[in-house]
């Protein structure tokens, strides 16, 4: 069964307290490629590698069914800076 955006969001919200989630299906509809952006206070004090490992672990079953998976992980403060830089 292909993964849809709602499943993925539910799986993330179940284990992580996010203030902002963006899930982009980059597969043109086949449900195999996703790019996610997560903003959470729980990332505070963790290196990017540790955050990504954590998310990889949370979404282990989902990622194993995908072809491609990309993630960005920010604390609320980092996300503000990220938005400021892009605007």
């Amino acid at each position: 069964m292909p993964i849809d955006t709602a499943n993925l969001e539910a799986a993330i919200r179940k284990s992580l307290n996010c203030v902002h989630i963006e899930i982009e299906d980059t597969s043109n509809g086949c449900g195999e490629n996703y790019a996610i952006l997560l903003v959470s206070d729980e990332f505070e004090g963790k290196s990017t590698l540790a955050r990504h490992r954590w998310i990889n672990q949370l979404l282990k079953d989902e990622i194993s069914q995908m072809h491609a998976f990309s993630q960005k992980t920010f604390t609320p403060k980092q996300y503000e800076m990220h938005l400021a830089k892009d605007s």
Partner: protein
Amino acid sequence: MCHRLGLLLLPTTMLRTALRSSLIRSSVLRPNHILPARFLSQEAREQIQNAVSSSPVVLFMKGTPANPECGFSRAAIQVLGLQSVPEEKLKTYNVLVDPELRSGIKEFSDWPTIPQLYVNGEFVGGCDILLSMHQSGELEKLLEEKNVIPTIEGEAVPVHAA
């Protein structure tokens, strides 16, 4: 007679049991994050260990630097090029021609995707991490610290330069 035989056998049996329990214990005490590695044979694990430390910079990718066969691998090799990582310090492994390596490296690093970058035998991350470290200046700092690229005097770029 039986009793004496039993006594004679006792020391070796005990030794064997002790050996076995110490073997079991050492595998049980592995930290959680490398637990998936239990599926890797000792031999495969050693081969991958040799591969990750075969060069100061090692990239496991799909395709070759001249002909990357996936956008993420292409991005990774481009970043290493932009960082001017010298050819003699970079070794790449094409996981598409080696299915065992392809699954083995995922278990070894406990990382679900390709490409994967190692610097001085240490796992750095996949494509997302590589790109964000490149943009923030952290990658240049890491490569300088590990003597992969020369440090340019007086060029201390702040990590969060506006």
